């Protein structure tokens, strides 16, 4: 079973490429994929447990919706709406945790909401499926637009070149990827159980090559800086005076289990 990732150069139209190498694959592997994605990452669970009662969130790239049910107690303390491009993942997400959830079929590059209507937004393991740095920047801008300019909180996770010891993958390294990241295809091997269920390919495991952009150290912070600039937001903590100023502060950022994360807070001087 191949576990190594395959370096790739994307020259096709980005939207068409993402349809073939991300969206269509998740629609095909949804059930099997979902059965391997049930454990919430600690920093995300902690972020969600600190959200005040009555807040509404957007989970951009919700997948099987595993974060829609957090925090589990008390029930209905906050709500999150799950957005995803894969209808088959949404069919699983809409009953995540055994409760009916709110899910919407859409693209994280589009913006189908009232401006700033959410109190918080998370985007976990999603933005790394976009094939150009411009598209990744737009996706971050959409998150900044989605949340309240006064108090919005945002948490983003993306896959890192820097992998931890538990990871089964071996990562090709070349000199250039140290600052700009590395485009790769990651094989997903469909399970035997799934093969039997669909009776396809006569026991030959089918391999799906999903596209990922593996982030270099510092690249996620640069991406957020670019998105803030493009959205007319200052980057840094809220200053004293100057009414009308709007900005976004990096609350924390780091690396956890082969991923980079960044937590943001928006502010506005009124």
């Amino acid at each position, binding site marked *: 079973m191949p576990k190594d990732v395959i370096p790739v150069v994307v020259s096709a139209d980005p939207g068409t490429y993402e349809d073939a190498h991300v969206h269509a694959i998740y629609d095909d592997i949804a059930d099997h994929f979902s059965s391997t994605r049930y454990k919430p990452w600690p920093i995300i669970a902690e972020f969600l447990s600190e959200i005040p009662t*009555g807040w509404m969130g957007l989970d951009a790239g919700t997948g099987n919706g595993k974060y829609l049910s957090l925090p589990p107690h*008390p*029930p209905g303390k906050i709500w999150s709406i799950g957005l995803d491009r894969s209808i088959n993942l949404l069919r699983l997400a809409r009953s995540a945790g055994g409760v009916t959830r709110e899910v919407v*079929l859409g693209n994280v590059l*589009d913006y*189908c*909401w009232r401006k700033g209507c959410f109190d918080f937004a998370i985007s976990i393991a999603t933005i790394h499926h976009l094939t150009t740095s411009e598209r990744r920047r737009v996706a971050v801008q959409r998150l900044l637009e989605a949340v309240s300019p006064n108090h919005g909180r945002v948490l983003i996770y993306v896959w890192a070149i820097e992998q931890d010891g538990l990871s089964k993958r071996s990562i090709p390294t070349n000199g250039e990827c140290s600052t700009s990241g590395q485009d790769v295809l990651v094989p997903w091997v469909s399970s035997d159980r799934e093969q039997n269920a669909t009776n396809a390919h006569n026991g030959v495991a089918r391999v799906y090559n999903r596209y990922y952009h593996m982030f270099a150290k510092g690249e996620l912070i640069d991406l957020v800086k670019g998105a803030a600039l493009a959205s007319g937001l200052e980057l840094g903590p809220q200053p004293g005076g100057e009414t009308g100023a709007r900005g976004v502060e990096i609350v924390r950022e780091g690396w956890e289990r082969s991923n980079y994360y960044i937590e943001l807070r928006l502010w506005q001087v009124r």
Partner: protein
Amino acid sequence: MVRLITHNLLACHARGCTSNNFPLRFSDAQIETRKADFNADFIRAFMPKLEWSALVDAAKQLGDTSLPLEAPDMLDEEFLKNLHRVLLEIHIEEGSMTCPNCNHRYPISNGIPNMLLAEDEIA
């Protein structure tokens, strides 16, 4: 799922459609009601963020006229429970939502709204 809590946030995003693009209007809605956990603290804290008249109007389109035209100042238990019911217990399973400005139609199938646009419709 589309419940009114989500409908109150959705806006049309077709190319060039940037004003009067909210709220979307329901057509051919098939609804189901299902109980949801009532959390009075959530409803009380969330309520100021609602576009109230959009909610009243959307509920009316689904045949529910229980909400007052103006949001009340005094929020008693009975009111909160009813608001909870309208926001979280009415599920639009099938139908569509149409933009009041450009008439773009977003289908709802098996409770999931499709907000995707074709390449040439994207803003």
